[in-house]
């Protein structure tokens, strides 16, 4: 057991910290779910890319630094700690890119990865359908092969970033007679395709964080097929195991929030109720535990051990931790005033409230926590299914 970083890792941390210190926007950017905010976030992605911070673990030829998972953990810690803007292209970088690396042709990788890393092309996710939420395999959107084209008809929903994204990655049914996990294919669809219409869907806070996408004889060229025809489920699962795993939620995100929570507690006068102090400690300890659990998982990944329980266990833990961190902050604020009315003022309170609403989605998306708990019980602990 060796918990010390190497000299190189220490230096890397210092480099990241210093660069961020000198470069993050002075003013908080508008929400990335507004058109203005979306473009400002895109510009920030470009700046990150130009300085080599956009995708530190990717190969250099796609704009990365070829670094390992431990460095990635360091980068994320420093990134969140610095208060830098949210990443507008996480759908692409975290969800699509792993599948592109695994299943993409060289042409596809060259075509898509660098423009993704630079923010030139921002991606939206197009998996869910009105009747295919948790039950992803019941996808109905169809794509019929027509020469060099796939012709898509159907509807997608909950496409996050869908309102302004440049591209959408979709799972569609290419074999009309197939059922469940069979006969699906994975298509990369330009958002400005003819026959594609998008309708923004407003989140609780009124921002169009999602879109519905309607396909009406939408033609997509077969060069945009990722993996083989009918192999869509495997391609999606390589993304999904990633979505539910370590990459989507780096511990830096939570330790940074825990730190903000400690600061909020400190800044509150008179001192918050002691039960709130204990809640702060509790949340802080859990963020701390998540950090070290992630470090331990990183060692396993580096040593080539299979990850069994980690993805589901971590998903349940971080999503509930995230709610807890924000709920605790709201209780502190509520205890000193009536926070709930401050929803849209650009104050500290608002940030916590927005964070809370965002956190509430955590136990739902990427496989509800109920389903994750089933997975832990059945696949990890070996309890009988029926």
């Amino acid at each position: 057991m060796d918990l010390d970083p190497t000299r190189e890792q220490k230096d890397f941390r210092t480099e990241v910290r210093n660069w961020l210190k000198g470069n993050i926007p002075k003013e908080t950017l508008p929400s990335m779910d507004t058109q203005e905010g979306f473009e400002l976030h895109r510009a920030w992605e470009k700046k990150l890319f130009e300085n080599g911070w956009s995708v530190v673990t990717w190969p250099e030829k796609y704009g990365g630094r070829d670094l390992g998972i431990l460095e990635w953990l360091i980068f994320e810690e420093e990134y969140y700690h610095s208060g830098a803007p949210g990443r507008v292209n996480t759908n692409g970088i975290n969800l699509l890119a792993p599948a592109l690396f695994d299943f993409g042709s060289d042409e596809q990788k060259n075509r898509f990865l660098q423009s993704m890393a630079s923010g030139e092309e921002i991606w939206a996710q197009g998996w869910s359908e009105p009747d295919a939420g948790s039950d992803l395999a019941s996808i109905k959107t169809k794509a019929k092969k027509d020469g060099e084209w796939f012709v898509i008809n159907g509807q997608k929903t909950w496409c996050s970033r869908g309102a302004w994204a440049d591209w959408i990655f979709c799972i569609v049914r290419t074999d009309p007679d197939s059922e469940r996990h069979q006969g699906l294919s994975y298509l990369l669809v330009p958002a400005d395709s003819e026959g594609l219409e998008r309708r923004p869907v407003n989140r609780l806070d009124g921002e169009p964080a999602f879109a519905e996408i309607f396909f009406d004889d939408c033609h997509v060229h077969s060069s945009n097929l990722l993996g083989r025809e009918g192999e869509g489920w495997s391609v999606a699962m390589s993304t999904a195991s990633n979505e539910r795993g370590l990459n989507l939620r780096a511990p830096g995100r939570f330790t940074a929030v825990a730190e903000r929570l400690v600061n909020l507690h400190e800044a509150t006068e008179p001192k918050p109720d002691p039960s709130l102090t204990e809640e702060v400690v509790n949340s802080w300890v859990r963020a701390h535990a998540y950090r070290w659990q992630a470090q331990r998982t990183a060692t396993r990944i580096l040593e080539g051990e299979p990850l069994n329980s980690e993805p589901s266990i971590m998903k349940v833990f971080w999503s509930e931790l995230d709610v807890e961190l924000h709920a605790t902050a709201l209780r502190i604020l509520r205890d000193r005033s009536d926070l709930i009315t401050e929803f849209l003022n650009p104050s500290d309170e608002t940030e916590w409230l927005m964070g809370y609403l965002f956190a509430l989605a955590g136990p739902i998306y990427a496989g509800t926590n109920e389903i994750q708990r089933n997975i832990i019980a059945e696949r990890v602990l070996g309890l009988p299914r029926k």
Partner: protein
Amino acid sequence: MRFAPTEQQEQFASNIASILEKECSAEALQLAGEEPSGRIGGLWETLSETGLMGIAIPEEFGGLGMGSSDLVFILEELGRSACSEPVAEHAAVAAPLITRWAQNETAREILEESAAGSRKLTVGSPIDERVVSVESSDLILLSKENELHAVPTKEIEHTPMTSIDPRYKTSAIEWSPTPKTLISKEPEAIEDMTNRGVLSAAAQAVGVAQKLLEMTVSYVSERKQFGKPVGTNQAVKHHCSDMAIAIEFARPLVQVASWAIDNERSPTENFTVSGEVSAAKTLASEAVELACRSALQCHGAIGYTVEHDLQIWLKRGWILASTWGDALFHRRRLGKILGLTD
């Protein structure tokens, strides 16, 4: 001892419920949310016609001469329909306060018009200093240093706050007490004001929780995933049961608190009116918070959008859980009443 609504109480509440069902539907609320006023046109007037605005005003002033324990069943319905009018502030807090604490001549003038709903009252909470529905009100009950005042809306300055619920308008206000606005100098009057406000929030919170449960039960019974209704999963069943349990135990305490306010004493040995009220709000706040969380979890992503009606009750639920003191506030108040802390 008979712990149940009378036939008359049930009848009145179910009357109001039918009106609300028609005039304060989810559709109407969605539309109101897009209006700057956040209001449903005509709703105040329709409700006024039932006599509701004067329900707790003595008959000599044109009211119905009833009390909190008559109102409590109606307050729950107001929450259940996420009613966008300040009926609770007017009928359950301000009017009874004036009835009990104002001098007769002041009272008569205000109450006669209030009973008909043509003068609209609202109230500023001594706990958090916000006022609901200032713009549409005529007279605001406010506290300052143990004094109860009734201040005409036109005499105060108010700054609208941006509420999470566009149908629930609150303002920060500035005002100065004058001898003319003074209603009472009894410290008890402020305690009474607090208790009535807390009770009305608690009763509405139970109603919101009930509605969230109903919506959830109906959604999970219909929505299918993996070839069967989501509601066949035991985890979903237990979410719903836990909501039902929390509501079932908050509700009687809310009713007991209303009786305590009417009778100016607690029906529990060695306990107080304020204790009953804080006990009720503690469990009501907890019930509605749990209901918000579980309803959203059981609905999944759809509940997370403005388009789905669930959000109307989520937002109202979050507000009612915290307004007039959240569970923590009332646990602390109870700690003092029970002699556990100073």
